[in-house]
């Protein structure tokens, strides 16, 4: 569905002068530095996949999404989105994709939501029956009934993002780009969004490319992840093997019946100690929780235990550090 080959994007950033008449000298200055926002990235996304795109701020995620949407011209490399080259065939591409930027809205600020949707129907030339069917389906699913007559500027962030996602799907796009859709969204709305996104994906087979900082999004939605850092591709593969490779260290929390002194135990490391509780970290291949609990229980009576799986954030951190 999406083929990206050796994609590179360079930005020329003008060098800001300092000192006297800096503003005027800046006007005539031709000096600039080159920044590689995306550097030689290749990946492909299959029909109906949900792929999570992870990376730090400024890693090049949004730049890639913009190039896939056709609003940014690649410096080199090639992109096809369902056979269409996004930049050269911007209009054709626009009709088959839906784009949601969590921090930006495509809706008109001052008009009631339904009016924005009506306008989109005209812009995208959506068939009336399709438009009505999509509205009838998505509005209750996203809980937009109460805001449908409200202008966007009066909405909460969660409502706005949901409205934007609905807007992006009105023309039944084959591909949906979600750029940080859950940023700043509360837990309840987030759950709505997760359920909605997976349902759209399974029901309509919409291919979804999702960038996020929220590892909850990745765990809930994506079976495959692409990690980039400073414009380079760091990892491309399924979530489970990433966890196995970079999330091998788990933690075990043990609550003792009474306070005990710090002690050492084979194959695990004491990382934290607080009142009756102690935390140990251990490598997946070297120890099992059961084995550790037995070993510890022999020395001090245990009241309670908890196994803490590594969160994706720390996995990604390991991934960054490993390179």
């Amino acid at each position, binding site marked *: 569905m999406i083929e990206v080959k050796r994609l590179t994007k360079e*930005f*020329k950033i003008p060098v800001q002068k300092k000192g006297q008449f800096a503003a005027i000298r800046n006007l005539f200055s031709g000096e600039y530095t080159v920044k590689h*926002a995306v550097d030689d990235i290749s990946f492909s996304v299959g029909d109906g996949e949900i792929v999570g795109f992870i990376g730090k701020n400024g890693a090049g995620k949004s*730049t890639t999404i*913009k190039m896939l*949407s*056709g*609003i*940014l*011209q690649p410096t080199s490399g090639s992109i096809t989105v369902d056979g269409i080259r996004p*930049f050269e065939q*911007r*209009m054709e591409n*626009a*009709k088959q994709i839906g*784009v949601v*930027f969590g*921090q*930006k*809205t*495509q809706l*008109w600020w*001052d*008009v*009631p939501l339904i*009016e*924005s949707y*009506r*306008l989109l*129907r*005209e*812009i*995208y*030339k959506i068939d009336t029956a399709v438009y009505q069917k999509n509205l009838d389906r998505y509005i209750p699913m996203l809980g937009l009934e109460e805001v449908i007559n409200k*202008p966007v500027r009066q909405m909460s962030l969660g409502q706005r993002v949901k409205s934007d996602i609905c807007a992006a799907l009105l023309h039944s796009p084959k591909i949906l780009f979600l750029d940080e859709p859950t940023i700043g969204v509360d837990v309840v709305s987030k759950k709505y969004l997760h359920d909605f996104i997976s349902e759209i994906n399974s029901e309509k087979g919409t291919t979804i490319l999702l960038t996020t900082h929220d590892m909850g999004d990745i765990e809930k939605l994506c079976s495959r992840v692409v990690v980039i850092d400073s414009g380079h591709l760091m990892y491309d593969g399924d979530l489970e093997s990433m966890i196995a490779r970079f999330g091998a260290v788990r933690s075990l929390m043990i609550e003792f019946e009474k306070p005990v002194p710090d002690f050492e135990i084979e194959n695990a490391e004491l990382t934290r100690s607080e009142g009756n509780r102690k935390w140990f970290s251990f490598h997946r291949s070297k120890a099992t929780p059961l084995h550790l609990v037995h070993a510890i229980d022999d020395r001090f009576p245990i009241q309670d235990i908890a196994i803490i799986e590594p969160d994706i954030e720390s996995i990604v951190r390991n991934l960054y550090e490993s390179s």
Partner: protein
Amino acid sequence: MRAASGIDLRTGIAFLRNEFYNITIYRVSFWLNFIYTFLMMYSVGYVWRALYAANPGAVGVSLGQMISYAVLGVALEAILHPRNGPQNYIMEQVRKGTIEMDIMKPVDFQFYMFAKNMGSLAVRFLFLVLPSLIAACFLFSLKLPALPCFLGFLCSLACSVVVSFFLNFILGLLSMVTMNIKNINWGYNAVLRFFSGQMVPLWIFPGVLGIISDILPFRCIYAIPMSIYIGNDAGVDMLKALGVQFFWIILLWISSRLLMKHVFTRVMIQGG
């Protein structure tokens, strides 16, 4: 090709509806505008009356014609002032970083801005200009011009709206590069007011200023339709004046398309 760029009447009307909401939402600002327009018409009418009382032959047209001209100048400014142009929307979108969302839509950007602008213009005309014009008509007992003049005026007004749009659109594109619109708008409006004949009729300008105002496109916006309305440009003069407007429409259309392509390429390469 047309359909591929999303240019058609239905889309245009949808934009118009949308603009109606945009304007009616800010009621306070709307009523302030309304009062301002009416007061301006009232005062320019009286200023010209006082001038004529002191020196009847100075301007070369009758007092009735001059008052019609001045009142029309205020009325047209209420819809054609650069602050109502698309450049402000463009700048705001650039500042918010949401201009990409506009460029991304499968509709020609210039048409999109034009349709949006026409929507706001139509709403302003119906609710702002028309009531004040009717009131001014009674107040100064203005007469409607003869039919040929009036038809010529309507044609000329349509051209004026298009010329004004193109100039505003070009400023909007420039603002995408300079990241500033307030100063550009302010300077543009100062030049526009002076050289367009909106406040002072161009035919009383002395030699050099007259030539400059003839060369510039600004008179297409106010002076030409208003002169046609009061019958100062009639017959062959009217056709000539319309010809000048057509010429500028073509020239500005081509140059704005070229500029749009250039600016978009720049934005799309630089990422804004």
